């Protein structure tokens, strides 16, 4: 404004005031329209709350079908997958094959451990090895809960 006042001498006050108001209105509306474009663009760029496109999700059941601290083994594309309902209400899923020799593991709710029946391998609820011969943790698969449906995502 000070800049304007210095470079453009105002002949009288009224047109000056009117021009400034109109300029302000044009500027404000233009910025408003700009925001109107920008906000949806940002919303568009934000991926929707569901598994990444390209990955295939399989519904393994509804939330209420899983009791707390229980698990079930489901078959996805012929591969056994252990879906674990943790005591807090969270879900995790692991490929239910022991990393030792490939036996199908199961959940022991009493000890809150995943156990392999073959050679005594034991895994925690995060899939990490607690005891026994398995060389590495169970492979975890992402779980998405959407509209109360529990969905396991395969890459």
């Amino acid at each position, binding site marked *: 404004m000070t800049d304007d006042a210095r470079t453009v001498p105002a002949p009288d006050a009224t047109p000056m005031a009117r021009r400034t108001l109109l300029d302000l209105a044009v500027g404000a509306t233009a910025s408003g329209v700009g925001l109107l474009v920008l906000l*949806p663009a940002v*919303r568009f760029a934000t991926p*929707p709350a569901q598994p990444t496109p390209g990955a295939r999700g399989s519904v393994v059941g509804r939330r209420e079908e899983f009791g707390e601290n229980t698990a079930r083994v489901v078959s996805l594309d012929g591969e056994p997958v252990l879906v674990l309902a943790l005591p807090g209400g969270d879900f995790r899923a692991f490929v239910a094959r022991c990393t030792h020799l490939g036996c199908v593991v199961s959940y022991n709710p009493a000890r809150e451990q995943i156990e392999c029946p073959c050679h005594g391998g034991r895994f925690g609820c995060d899939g990490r090895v607690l005891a026994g011969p398995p060389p590495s943790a169970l492979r975890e698969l992402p779980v998405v809960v959407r509209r109360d449906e529990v969905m396991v995502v395969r890459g």
Partner: protein
Amino acid sequence: MEPPDEAADPTPIRALLRRLAGVHVSRGDGLTFVLLAAVAMLLMAVEAVTGVLLALYYRPTTADANDSVRFVVTEVEYGGLVRSLHYWGAQSLIAVLGATVAWAALRRAYRAPHALAWISGVALAVLAVAEAFTGSLLPWSHRSVVDAQLSSSLAAQLPLVGPLLRGLMLGGSQPNDLSLVRILGLHAGVLPMLASICIGALALHAAGCAPRHPSAASLSLSPHAALRAAALAAVVAIALLALSSLLPPHLGASAEVARASAAGLRPSWYLAFVHQMLSAAPPRMIGLPSARVLVTAVALGVAALALFPLFDRRASRAGQVAVLVALAAIVGGTIRALLH
């Protein structure tokens, strides 16, 4: 208007506006071109922004492409609108650039020293058609596959470079995964890059040719012409938005290459005249397959249209008539094909 005093301007934008205030355009043709250029720039900006957004979710494989576009429309917020805007923006851009070329031909705006502007303008219009066409292939619908097959076979008809072009475009003899990556590369990389070269040439030309001396029949570029352009752009934006909101573009089902048949498909309106020529022609012309003759003729014709000022340096009436006849043939062919 007092001469610009750069030292007194602390901000770069203000300095630019002041310099532009010294640039004048004629009230007739000059203003018309500024307005047309402004609308084209708005549409290009819409295409660039929506194009970048759509690219965020696009997956260029034959198995996933169609599904990824559907994902955008169904699941992504504002997805349907962004795709619709991208589609209608492209259609409008072809129309606006085509109109600009026609207007330039009518006003003989290719005369020296405007030859470079004419060449760049025709090239931009051709690039807009190429963008719309490659864009229509990306969803990999039934129609895309047929178009990819057809257009690559047509490109292969060109003498010398034909088979090479087909191979470069498809990455094989039949549409496959590589084709989509290449088409995407063309659509989002090569063609926009060529277009920006043309835009740069036009800007340089404008900077070099615009008169700097005001007259009774001229307007300063800033703010007079610029404000008019902005007002027109706002009106065009309204029209585009309304169109995109109310008329979503069609999307064909995902296609299998082996089962793609052209039965029942209509060509896009901007290529309808080529299609019309191809289907109306006899099987052989001047002893060669007619497709080869016609495709070569169209390619040479477009090149001749673009480079025409170089051949017609004195800007004769006959030259103008030839250009106008060529443009009228394209428009007439398009209208006839659409009515057919």
